[in-house]
């Protein structure tokens, strides 16, 4: 039962083949068994989960179940969940019990899904390997000496190891797609504004977006049906009709134009990964799509620009963690300055501090124009590249990451190399576009992800493209042996 997709679990629950309590207990047992090795959960909410499962079973019995009623799910510990510890994987919030619920998790709970726990992540979502967590690194179920990717590393590790059938993630520069790629899962970052950010602890407000992490595109569509939609509590969420993401999955893709940006296939890309991506593209050609080479000339500027914009925003987003009202407070502060410096000095980890310092610097008087303002201009250029590309193609494809999962500790001391592992994903956030990563094969037993980038609000189109591929391949159904 633990290997089934959420679409299959939903059917099994409806048919009475299994109850939600049974299913929830099964996953809770698997978490207890494997979490000590993988470290993918920060909190396991067993009691609430079983109560929610019992309630779901009553709904199922009464026949008024929604599509995901009774289906277990794990949430990234970046979403505030009422009455449940919400840490963002930081010592700063180790004592923080959220007094309110995020819109995203509330919508999923209202649909009857059962929260199993809160997953590990890079501290405040700042990282690409899940090594910056206060709660320790997360292991990749495909090779426990390797990172699962980040920042949604706990979510992907949990789903890949079948400790949860699906999870939520958030993506600021690739934090859903990169780990999904490194763990062989389907991950979708929606268009900026498609999913409410209310209650999601902000890293970089103009880039952050929540999305699903699942086995299949079909499952991602089911979750998107719950997550997407306007929220009056988030001014940047878009008031726009939400399509039924499941409805168009089987549409034909003959004649659709796929653009391959030449900048995504140059020397930075590992040869073996390139071969897997080429094979996936061939599969699309066989499905009737037309392949076209395109250019996104400002691709090389995406990473440096991102490391101005994101730190700038995070440096002020994280100012609220000051030891005054909630979160970590140092022992016996001597005065206000001491309270601030020690609480923050003790509460934040090194990567978070690095980004706060970069962000403070680029916003400072005398540097603002040279860094922040210039970055905003380049951001516009990056968006324009995509705009121009979508005039000639329907979808853009390429590798999600330049390599497969790297070893724990391999890049931990070299931030710039680490930052470059998001080279293909970051530009999408800068432009606010939707993009998915789907499993496309393996190199030496490690998963490779294919990235699909769509035009604004064309998540349906991406899911349709992904689903058609998953109809003719089974990469997304592969499981790490230890966890079958």
């Amino acid at each position, binding site marked *: 039962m633990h290997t089934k997709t959420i679409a299959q679990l939903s059917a099994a629950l409806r048919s009475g083949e299994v109850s939600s309590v049974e299913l929830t207990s099964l996953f809770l047992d698997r978490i207890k068994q494997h979490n000590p090795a993988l470290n993918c959960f920060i909190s396991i909410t067993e009691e609430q989960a079983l109560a929610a499962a019992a309630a779901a079973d009553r709904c199922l019995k009464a026949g008024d179940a929604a599509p995901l009623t009774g289906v277990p799910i794990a949430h990234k510990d970046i979403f505030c969940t009422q009455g449940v510890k919400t840490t963002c994987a930081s010592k700063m919030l180790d004592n923080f019990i959220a007094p309110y619920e995020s819109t995203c998790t509330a919508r999923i709970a209202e649909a009857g899904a059962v929260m199993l726990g809160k997953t590990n992540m890079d501290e405040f979502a700042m990282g690409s390997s899940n090594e910056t967590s206060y709660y320790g690194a997360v292991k990749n179920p495909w090779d426990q000496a390797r990172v699962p990717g980040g920042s949604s590393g706990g979510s992907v590790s949990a789903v890949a190891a079948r400790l949860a059938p699906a999870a939520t993630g958030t993506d600021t520069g690739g934090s859903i797609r990169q780990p999904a790629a490194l763990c062989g899962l389907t991950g979708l970052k929606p268009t900026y504004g498609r999913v409410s950010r209310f209650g999601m602890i902000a890293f970089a407000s103009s880039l952050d977006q929540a999305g699903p992490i699942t086995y299949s595109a079909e499952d991602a569509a089911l979750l998107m049906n719950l997550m997407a939609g306007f929220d009056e509590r988030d001014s940047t969420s878009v008031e726009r009709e939400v399509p039924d993401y499941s409805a168009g999955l089987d549409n034909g893709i003959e004649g659709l134009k796929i653009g391959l940006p030449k900048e995504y296939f140059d020397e930075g890309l590992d040869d073996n990964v390139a071969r897997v991506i080429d094979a996936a593209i061939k599969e699309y050609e066989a499905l009737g799509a037309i392949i076209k080479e395109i250019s996104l000339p400002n691709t090389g500027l995406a990473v440096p620009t991102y490391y101005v914009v994101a730190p700038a925003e995070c440096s002020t987003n994280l100012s609220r963690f000051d030891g005054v009202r909630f979160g970590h407070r140092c022992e016996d502060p001597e005065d206000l300055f001491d309270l601030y410096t020690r609480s923050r000095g003790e509460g934040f980890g090194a990567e978070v501090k690095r980004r706060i310092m970069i962000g403070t610097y680029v*916003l400072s008087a005398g540097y603002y124009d040279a860094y922040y303002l210039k970055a905003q201009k380049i951001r516009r250029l990056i968006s324009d590249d995509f705009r121009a590309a979508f005039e000639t193609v329907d979808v853009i494809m390429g590798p999600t990451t330049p390599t497969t999962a790297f070893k724990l500790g391999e890049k931990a001391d070299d931030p710039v190399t680490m930052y470059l592992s998001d080279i293909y994903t970051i530009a999408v956030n800068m432009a606010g576009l939707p993009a998915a990563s789907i499993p496309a094969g393996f190199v030496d037993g490690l998963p490779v992800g294919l990235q699909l980038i769509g035009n604004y609000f064309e998540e349906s189109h991406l899911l349709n493209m992904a689903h058609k591929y998953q109809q003719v391949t089974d990469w997304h159904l592969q499981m790490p042996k230890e966890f079958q």
Partner: protein
Amino acid sequence: MEWEIVIGLEIHTQLATKSKIFSGASTAYGAAPNTQACAVDLGLPGVLPVLNREAVRMAAKFGLAVGARVSPRSVFARKNYFYPDLPKGYQISQFELPVVEGGQLEIQVEGEAARVIGITRAHLEEDAGKSLHEDFHGSTGVDLNRAGTPLLEIVSEPDMRSAKEAVAYMKKIHSLVQYLEICDGNMQEGSFRCDANVSIRPKGQEALGTRSELKNLNSFRFVERAINFEVERQIDVIEGGGKVVQETRLYDSDKDETRSMRSKEEAFDYRYFPDPDLLPLELDEAYIEAVRKTLPELPDEKKARFISEFGLAEYEAGVLTASRELADYFEVAARIAGDDAKRTANWVMGDLLGALNKEGKEIGESPVSAELLGGMLQRINDNTISGKIAKQVFECMWNGEGDADTVIEQKGLKQVTDSGAIEKIIDEIIANNPQQLEQYRAGKDKLFGFFVGQVMKETEGKANPAQVNALLKQKLA
């Protein structure tokens, strides 16, 4: 050397919205600490601001009232600094693109020509909470009820040339925001606060001198005193061979002095940048026109109308339109009184304001309502009572003894207009004062007043003065 004073004001008006500028929490004043601060106001992780449309409407209203441009696109920015009563570690304000730009206001200092003061901009922002340093045994308490209260910061050009002009400008804005019903104007509760930028320069010099920013000017009196103190201080510094340094100075009303808070070098780098949680504020022409339609009659328009419609003098109209409440009071009383609006004006400005002043009451707290005063004035106009008797009636009404008619009835204050009766009294008085009569007839005109006084005494002031005058003239001739 002769010095010219240059003053610009930054006025913070608390907008009279029911809820906060970025959250649904109440803005009511005086609640128990931290009972009106929701998750957004507390700056909890994950919360987001949502702009209060009512605050925007009020800002637009102000902009239109001072002839400014209401920007079709303005941007909210984060002003970053750490302080315990600033929950997010930044204040959401407007920086480069404010909602209101470029207005003006005419002010008048008594006895001087009217002057036009430029308004550079007005922008929307959130207020911070309050730090409470007493009662916490060496610690500081934080009350976040005020955090997130909407403010409109109105920034003037450095156009004022004296402390008196600064006060006149501040009073005019104070009156205007109440006319517009966008601020309750309560200075004690901090709904209307002011900072002043003050510098001096040799008369005739174009370039501005170095300014200091005076904080904590929370009454009209403090503004005047703080500026005067600061001007003297700057003159002393320069004439003593020193240089004024750019700094922020705090006004201490107990000692009546300003003292340095921080210099330019110590000034914060606020690291302003557009708040990514809020979209740019876009207001189209139709919206702005719809707001324009809601503008009430403004003080200057009202003043002009009072002059033309009621025949008031410029000065009277100015005093009566200084606040909307006073203007409304006058207008209601004048309409009930019927004839002679000037008499109404005199009563309102004289007896009424005098009595209110004496008891330290605001016009809204007057025991004599506009209706009551108007009713009394009507009785003067229809000769039921004289102006003199009216003073007595007014006092009774002030003490809550009912309306004018009741007082007149109960106290028997009705004016005697029966000329037969008055004549009879006059005859008696003339008969009883032969000496005075003789002197009067011999040319001592001043004695006319003596006879009037006698008649009034005899009638307990109730005789119609005009009638008394006419009849006396006849009889004494």
